């Protein structure tokens, strides 16, 4: 952005009193507005605590494409969506020891916990999964969100009686993958990419998978 069009200069005058505002017959174009937005983001957000402003400016292609589609109110075309899903699928890290199912009790704690990674947290904060913010999970917890679908009886509904059986393998893998990187299955999903985004560790993902699929978990009672 070395050269500015005269129209762009007019737009920027809005944000900088030092530039002279000229009359403007027509509004700025979509591209100019996108550029102006990024300039305003750059000027407005700053590093604080463990959160760096660069994380916002240098976000990945998935977020860029999905944000633009959302702002225009148009879903991605099928080809772009497929491409984004493929890119994200490649990022999924499968369990290093081949074990998918962890301790559901730990999983419940992680699902309840909504902490971590804000500018008031420190790097010692153990991150939570934020799961109950959006999903009904264990039916005993009445304080659950509805942004995502209910996960109550998640494993039971899908017929998982032994998560270690061969028959359960596809659903177990899907569950792991969905938690690790939800955008691998739905390009512009609202769901965070818990593993890929560095929100949850591999061990934590394993516990959450346990919460959803262990037949002994209260989720499947």
């Amino acid at each position: 952005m070395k050269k500015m069009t005269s129209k762009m200069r007019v737009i920027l005058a809005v944000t900088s009193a030092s530039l002279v505002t000229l009359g403007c017959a027509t509004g700025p174009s979509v591209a100019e507005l996108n550029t102006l937005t990024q300039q305003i983001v750059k000027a407005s957000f700053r590093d604080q605590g463990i959160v760096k402003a660069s994380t916002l400016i240098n976000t990945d292609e998935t977020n860029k494409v999905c944000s633009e589609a959302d702002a225009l109110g148009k879903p991605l075309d099928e080809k772009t969506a497929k491409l984004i899903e493929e890119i994200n699928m490649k990022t999924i890290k499968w369990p290093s020891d081949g074990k998918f199912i962890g301790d559901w009790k730990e999983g419940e704690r992680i699902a309840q916990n909504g902490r971590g990674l804000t500018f008031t947290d420190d790097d010692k904060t153990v991150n939570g999964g934020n799961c109950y913010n959006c999903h009904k999970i264990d039916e005993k917890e009445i304080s659950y969100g509805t942004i995502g679908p209910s996960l109550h009886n998640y494993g039971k509904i899908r017929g998982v009686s032994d998560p270690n059986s061969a028959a359960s393998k596809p659903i177990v893998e899907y569950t792991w993958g969905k938690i690790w990187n939800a955008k691998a299955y739905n390009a512009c999903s609202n769901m965070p990419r818990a593993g890929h985004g560095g929100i949850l560790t591999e061990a934590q993902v394993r516990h959450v998978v346990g919460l959803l699929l262990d037949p002994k978990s209260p989720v499947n009672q």
Partner: protein
Amino acid sequence: MKHSISVLLAAGLITLSQSSLAQKTASQSIDEYRAMLQDGNPADLFEAKGEGLWTQKRGPKNASLEKCDLGKGPGVFKGAFVELPKYFADTGRVQDLESRLLTCMETLQGLNAAEIAKTPFGRGEQVNMTALATWVAAESKGMKFNLPQANQAEKTFYEVGKRLFFQRGGPHDFACASCHAEDGKRIRLQDLPNLTKNAGDGIGVAAWPAYRVSNGQMWGMQQRLNDCYRQQRFPYPGFASDATIALGVYLGVNSQGSASIAPAIKR
């Protein structure tokens, strides 16, 4: 008091006391809780403080804010809040209430606007800022939002605000829209207003400034947006920065016609 067994079963309130014959749903109970708090909103304390600050001579210039132009002419505070943010020719900027108060505190009272903007919420002059914003907003209680969009800068800021609203980022890929672009959604037990349109009287934008029960703090719109961004895992938005104001324009224009209940009381 209304009881409904069928609604009870739907909500699955199995852990609640079984002592009463029928159970209310959790959301009915929460509504009752909120209603109990309406009478006696501690926001009144901040509103009273703000009213006093408006006429109090302060700062290096030992002047009051009584000549402050909040967009309806010097000294006019009634109805100003529901028309902000708007474009101000004297600063050449689109400004929200808090940004404009900052301008007045500097030009009229000689206070250092940059210093105040850097001060964390709840400290020093920011305490006064919140009280002032609470009082000015309260002077528009019951009035409908009616932001101007005649000026090109205001139109441009609406478009920028829209893009900010949908901008995903941070480790969780959150945007404002992740929670606030659909009707009838909840986070935990809290209803989420759909902020892409008029969410209704006293809902969304029309409920701030508000007293936060959870931490006993009074929050203006700047702090509301700041904490939304914090929970989105975004970096820190500067106080009265253009991003927060552009977002304010987008939300305010979308709320066109909804009546302000500020200062409200919120979880």
